[in-house]
């Protein structure tokens, strides 16, 4: 099975708690280890919650900075990844609000560009027809995600791009798991149906 996106998290819960405590006390090495463990989650979250052209590096840097400055606000009851994702989501929402932007994925995609995600569809000597269908499926997925309602876009991005589980998404969005499931089901139903329409 093709695996869902996951960030490279290698910390055991006990180690993570110790690192958080040390970072709170000013241990920069502990802080760096924490950031390193979750930076992929933050890059993926910001990349897919911000519109094309926004500075993702600046967003991740600001998220990291806010997290380091407010480590005392992390109670330890939820997951640290969910807490970090919440900061990233709030930063991205704020950017969108300030710029009066709604879509977080550009609709203006040059399908033939080298950076196009369509270029990474697995090949294995497929027929031109299959390549075209795969490209169409990916293009439709991108477009459909871009026009999902805001909350559905957020849960979809956190689940499928950032790789958070349902509990982590709930924490990131400050909602309960049932709400996450509701939005995620609606989003998946919409996106899956348009993707499958592009395939035989």
């Amino acid at each position, binding site marked *: 099975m093709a695996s869902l996106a996951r960030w490279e998290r290698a910390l055991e819960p006990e180690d993570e708690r110790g690192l958080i405590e040390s970072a709170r006390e000013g241990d920069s090495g502990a802080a760096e280890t924490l950031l390193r463990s979750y930076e992929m989650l933050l890059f993926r979250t910001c990349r897919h919650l911000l519109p094309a052209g926004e500075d993702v590096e600046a967003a991740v840097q600001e998220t990291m900075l806010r997290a*380091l400055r407010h480590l005392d*606000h992390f109670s330890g009851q939820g*997951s640290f990844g969910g*807490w970090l994702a919440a900061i990233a989501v709030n930063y991205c929402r704020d950017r969108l609000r300030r710029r009066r932007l709604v879509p977080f994925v550009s609709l203006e995609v040059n399908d033939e560009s080298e950076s196009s995600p369509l270029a990474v569809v697995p090949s294995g000597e497929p027929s031109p027809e299959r390549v075209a269908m795969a490209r169409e499926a990916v293009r439709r997925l991108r477009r459909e995600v871009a026009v999902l309602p805001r909350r559905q876009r957020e849960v979809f991005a956190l689940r499928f791009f950032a790789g958070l589980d349902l509990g982590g998404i709930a924490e990131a969005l400050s909602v309960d798991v049932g709400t996450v499931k509701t939005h995620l089901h609606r989003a998946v139903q919409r996106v899956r149906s348009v993707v499958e329409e592009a395939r035989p």
Partner: protein
Amino acid sequence: MNIIHLTDDELDRALVGESLATRAEEHLGACVACRRRRDGFVAAVEAVRGDDPDEAVRARVRERALAAAALPASRHWVRWGLAAAAVIVLGLLPLLRAHLMSSPQLNADRVLVEVNTILDRDPLDDVASPDVVEAVVPVAHSGEGGSTS
């Protein structure tokens, strides 16, 4: 023998990460067609997700965040203080101008009273909307595991 494939709802549950009924779980493990539906969706998602930044980019961002976090906290409040002072000065300009235009002689006592009144107010009332405060100083909601909103 009739084969009962996963329904759309069951497939969505699998994609979302929810547990399936035993029958559906077993079928998914054995049915190539249903696995293809699931894996095709996941592959399309992965294609849209794109490549992750390389280590050099990640290290640069991480180091900048750590360096910024190491700055004294007072720097943060100095900026707020300067912003508040700027707002107060800008707020006083029209007042002073109106006063000078309407009266041939400056009433220093009245101006000082106005200045003191403004200075006694909380400067954050002038410089920070709730959105700005929320963005700069995210707070954890009680009972939600320290999540920041």
